[in-house]
């Protein structure tokens, strides 16, 4: 299968989105939405995997270890190949030459750019050439394949799960339409050949998340959450757009391959713009991957249905920021401060989110904050600028996709079973009721906590190794103890991660089995009940309606995910390492100089100990000694409340950003009506006033006119006398 079929990968889901829209029309057709979407995604997945062998350059792979290779970013022997679907935005400008020969020479040198022609007004020659080119073109390189694997793979699994989870919903087709739109957008982001197309995918992903978060649109909180997500993303996208403008200004092109080529070519003179571009692009990444300044939308995004949270807000969309940084690492390398900033933000976010997650009571909120912190890990990995670190970051992206999707989907099962109940305080001991979900979630938690030999253990270890290599100054980087601090932070976060995920697990599944059913009826508020009759008693009394295990359609994908979460470490380590190190991310990475196997071993042991201790503390407090946990909870009540309210940051930003802007709007509206309209009315008033002031002179009284005549006569006589006398 030749590489050109790759260009169909995004367009299959797009087509399925259109089909879903059509299916929305008739209630009868809704059932077909899920299969169409799943088929489309699987087809894309298949094309991606089949195209894998052609992608990338086989002969690069063997000397990736040494890093001592010189290669092209693009073209036959380059790292990736470009496949163009159709032309999108082109701009042509004249390039002037003094003499005809120069023009003709240039025209030959650049075929297809248009031929030399004389300038009618001046006497010099010019060639009409395309200066701005942004097409629907796709750049395929190993990194793209890795991301495609994640997006389409996890996407398909979640879609299958969603088919079961969303059955009976009134907006069934609408859900799958949005999901396929999302897959189209995500694949566009991942495969974009130029920054503008990347931006298109970027915003479409934001739109898809808006539609999916606001799926239960009759709930105002969902609508608000959707709006918040889209706007915060848009703020990030503004930074990203400015980054694109700056790159075009600096490199005269928006095509990633050309930018990377110029960035990595020797004679590139860095100026102030090179320092600014990474930071602007970083802003976009922060918005999309919910890092420190722009993370507040992710926890609220849990309002959407669980498959959405699993797919978009755990596995794929949030990782687009990491992908973008990985893709443009050579550009980030140009400014010395860019990558360290990325790492720092990642580290701080990881710790910050982990602390908040410890005190949340809603399962999905816990996993949302855990996603934010794991993304912090990935940022740290990508931000080190070392081979192991970037490999660790991207491998963690893959493993995280598996176990986080698993966790979300299992919590979906819990919610599905308990009719929307998610508060861990109101449920415990569900292992008997939902055995499969229990042990699947246990697998996910193990992986999240980075229990030795689970998938996350390897990826997190690679990141930690990268951090400490950088701290120790291996591979030609100068040692700096700032990275020691980050390493310590990472270990602390690892401990917290292990603690909060097992806290949830022990609370939900261990202990006495009593639980409170949730309030919402199945999945739809609508009075007219959907076709799906809730087989189990729908009275929502306290405790006596019993939870139920999810259907097989929902459980089958979970098993695959569980397998991935546990064994991806062994299988994927080599493959991902190969893919990452032969992609554009690793062009500028320093070659492996020192032997780090010793360091890796120690770190593995260390993180293993940390993980186990975290699990045991969680077990201690939330399984064996629950009362102890509550006692400590009262003593540290203010801290718990602070963490539970997410450091009050949401309210803070509402108070000092949203409210002032809103009142400013009111003020402007007032000004608009009073001041500017007032001025216009004033202009209209002047003639009327003049008219009114002259009117009394025509009072109609005879003598009035007499006096006026008299005065006129007197004046005339005076003037004549003056004239006669003064001459």
């Amino acid at each position, binding site marked *: 299968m030749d590489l050109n079929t790759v260009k169909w990968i995004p367009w299959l889901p797009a087509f399925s989105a259109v089909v879903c829209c059509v299916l929305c029309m008739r209630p009868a057709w809704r059932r077909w939405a899920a299969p169409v979407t799943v088929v489309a995604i699987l087809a894309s997945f298949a094309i991606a995997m089949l195209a894998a062998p052609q992608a990338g350059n086989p002969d690069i792979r063997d000397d990736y270890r040494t890093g001592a290779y010189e290669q092209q970013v693009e073209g036959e022997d380059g790292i990736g190949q470009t496949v163009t679907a159709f032309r999108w935005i082109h701009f042509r400008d004249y390039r002037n030459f003094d003499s005809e020969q120069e023009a003709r020479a240039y025209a030959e040198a650049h075929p297809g750019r248009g031929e030399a022609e004389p300038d009618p007004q001046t006497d010099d020659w010019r060639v009409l050439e395309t200066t701005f080119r942004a097409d629907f073109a796709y750049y395929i390189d190993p990194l793209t394949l890795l991301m495609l694997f994640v997006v389409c793979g996890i996407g398909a699994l979640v879609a299958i799960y969603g088919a079961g989870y969303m059955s009976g919903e009134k907006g069934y087709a609408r859900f799958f339409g949005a999901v396929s739109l999302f897959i189209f957008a995500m694949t566009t982001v991942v495969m974009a050949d130029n920054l503008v197309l990347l931006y298109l995918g970027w915003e479409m992903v934001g739109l898809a998340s808006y539609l999916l978060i606001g799926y239960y649109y009759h709930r105002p909180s969902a609508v608000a959450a959707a709006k918040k997500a889209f706007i915060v993303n848009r703020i990030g996208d503004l930074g990203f757009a400015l980054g694109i403008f700056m790159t075009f200004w600096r490199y005269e092109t928006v095509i990633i391959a050309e930018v990377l080529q110029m960035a990595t070519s020797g004679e590139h003179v860095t100026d102030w713009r090179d320092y600014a571009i990474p930071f602007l692009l970083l802003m976009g990444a922060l918005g999309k991957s919910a890092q420190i300044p722009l993370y507040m939308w992710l926890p609220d995004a849990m309002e959407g249905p669980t498959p959405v949270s699993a797919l978009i807000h755990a596995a794929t969309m949030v990782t687009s920021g990491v992908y973008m940084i990985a893709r443009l690492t050579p550009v980030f390398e140009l400014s010395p401060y860019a990558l360290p900033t990325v790492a720092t933000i990642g580290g701080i976010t990881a710790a910050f989110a982990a602390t908040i997650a410890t005190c949340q009571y809603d399962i999905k909120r816990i996993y949302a904050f855990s996603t934010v912190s794991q993304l912090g890990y990935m940022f740290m990995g990508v931000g080190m600028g070392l081979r192991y670190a970037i490999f660790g970051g991207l491998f963690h992206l893959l493993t995280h996709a598996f176990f986080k999707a698993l966790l979300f989907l299992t919590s979906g099962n819990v919610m599905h079973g308990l009719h929307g109940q998610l508060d861990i305080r109101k449920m415990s001991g569900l292992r008997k009721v939902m055995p499969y979900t229990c042990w699947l979630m246990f697998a996910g938690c193990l992986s999240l906590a980075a229990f030795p030999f689970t998938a996350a253990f390897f990826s997190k270890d690679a990141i930690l190794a990268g951090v400490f290599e950088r701290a120790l100054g291996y591979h030609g980087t100068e040692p700096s103890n700032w990275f020691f601090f980050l390493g310590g932070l990472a270990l602390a976060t690892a401990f917290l991660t292990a603690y909060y995920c097992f806290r949830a697990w022990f609370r939900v599944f261990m202990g006495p089995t009593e639980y409170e059913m949730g309030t919402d009826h199945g999945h739809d508020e609508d009075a007219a009940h959907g076709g799906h009759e809730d087989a189990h008693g729908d009275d929502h009394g306290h405790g006596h309606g019993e939870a139920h295990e999810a259907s097989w359609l929902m459980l089958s994908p979970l098993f695959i995910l569980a397998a991935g979460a546990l064994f991806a470490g062994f299988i994927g380590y080599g493959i991902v390492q190969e893919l990452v190190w032969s992609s554009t991310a690793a062009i500028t990475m320093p070659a492996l100089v020192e032997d780090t196997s010793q360091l890796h071993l120690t770190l593995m042991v260390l993180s293993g100990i940390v993980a186990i201790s975290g699990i045991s503390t969680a077990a201690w407090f939330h399984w064996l000694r629950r009362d102890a946990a509550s006692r400590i909870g009262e003593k540290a009540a203010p801290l718990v409340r602070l963490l539970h309210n997410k450091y009050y940051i949401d309210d803070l930003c509402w108070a000092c950003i949203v409210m002032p802007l809103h009142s400013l709007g009111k003020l402007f509206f007032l000004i608009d009506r009073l001041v500017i309209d007032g001025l216009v009315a004033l202009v209209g008033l002047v003639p009327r006033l003049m008219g009114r002031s002259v*009117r009394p*002179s*025509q*009072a*109609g*009284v*005879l*003598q009035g006119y*007499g*006096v006026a005549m*008299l005065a006129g006569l007197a004046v005339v006589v005076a003037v004549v006398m003056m004239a006669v006398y003064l001459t």
Partner: protein
Amino acid sequence: MTGEMPSLVLSHFLLTGAVLFALGLIGFVTRRNLIIMFLCTELMFQGVVVTLVAFAFYHGNLEGQSFVIFVLTIAAAEAALALALVVLLFRRRRTLDAAAWADLRG
């Protein structure tokens, strides 16, 4: 003084005529009673008559005086008609105030 023999000069009579005319004018403009206004016009005629005769005298011919005859006839005619009108106006609005008839105002 130049020792010149002062004599009754035309200017004397012009002075009187002018004063009378001015008084009539002011009267016409200030008084609000219609009849008095017409009376003031008569006063103006009177001023004119004095001036006319003074000039007639100083020119040695009597055209001025004969013109006075005409002035008299006009005055008489005008008085007759004006007063008739005033009576009508009075009967219509029971007032002689000039301001009552200000309908043609702007």
